[in-house]
């Protein structure tokens, strides 16, 4: 099995398990509060960003996003046009 296929299968398995976890949690509720969270969604989301002292959820989010894009940049072509960082291999 090729490395690319192995990685694909691994990522698919990881996401499937994680999605299953979240979906099971969402679907398992029995207290029928389906409408209330929806109504407060905008306010809950906005309030994370309006705290002038900062919010740990937002700080974690920004940090995680930085880590993801930072690592992705090192494997993406953004820094390796035509296979070479500056266009030409080192002599």
């Amino acid at each position, binding site marked *: 099995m090729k*490395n*690319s*296929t192995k*990685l*694909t299968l691994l990522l698919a398995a990881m*996401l499937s398990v994680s*999605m299953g*976890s*979240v*979906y099971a*949690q*969402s679907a398992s*509720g029995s207290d*029928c*509060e*389906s*409408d209330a*969270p929806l109504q*407060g*969604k*905008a306010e*809950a*989301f*906005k309030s*994370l960003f309006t*705290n002038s*002292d*900062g919010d*740990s*959820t*937002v*700080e*974690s*989010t*920004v*940090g*995680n*996003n*930085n*880590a*993801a*894009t*930072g*690592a*992705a*940049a*090192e*494997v*993406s*072509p*953004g820094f390796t*046009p*035509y*296979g*070479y*960082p*500056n*266009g030409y*291999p*080192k002599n």
Partner: protein
Amino acid sequence: MNNNLKQLLSVVALVSVCGVSFAQSGGGSVALTSNKNSFFGASSFSDVASLPGFSLSAPTGMVASWGVAYAGVSGISQAPFTSRADGAVSGGIGFGNARKTLGGSVDLGVGSINPTDGGAFNRGGVGLTVGRFFTDSLIGVAVGVKNATGWDSDFDTPDPSYYAAVTKILPNNYAPVIVNIGVGNNGYADINETVDRTGEIDVFGSVAVYVLPQVSLIADYTAGATSIGASLVPFAKLPLTLNVGVWDVLDNINGADTAVTGSLTYAFVF
């Protein structure tokens, strides 16, 4: 069935799962438990330790502040132009206060962690970003540089890539959105450019739709490549994020194959 098709089908299946989950919650036919102490699931954005991501590759106008450090690992099924699986690690720490004065972060990225391709950790670089977040307008602005200094044992040392980005938060009661747009040179310029990209400036951007407190769907355009994916926070109380995407889904990059990407990141708030 070739590898590209297999990878695309895998991601389509996974995005479909996300869609089913969104449809269930959006339609209100499934009760969402309101349990703020739940380790796994959260019914509100205020109950999660970290929101899912809002970009796959594009830099953003949201910057860190002092009090957070982060680390992550990223991988791609077929590295562009080499068609080999490869990965990278990245970590950084915030400084300043983005909401009151200026904030930012210093990052270190190390690429090529696959030892079978001629050596592990044979390239990397340091990045710096500075910016401000305006709590009234919910807009973040940032400027930054990737590879301010770096190394590469196989090729020339990478030139710095400069960028400026703006991020807008768009709360709503259905699916909050974060929009991000910016311009950058070199690594952020279109990969199909045949000239020296240090002198080329192009647009990049991303849009994330928060379908659940722990799930966002992301479209990203960076360096001429369009990517789609999903970001997931598997455990509500743990600031751990998993991103999975398809890079160059429109197959616009000459000489490179569409590929599956993934990353796993963790943030420390202190």
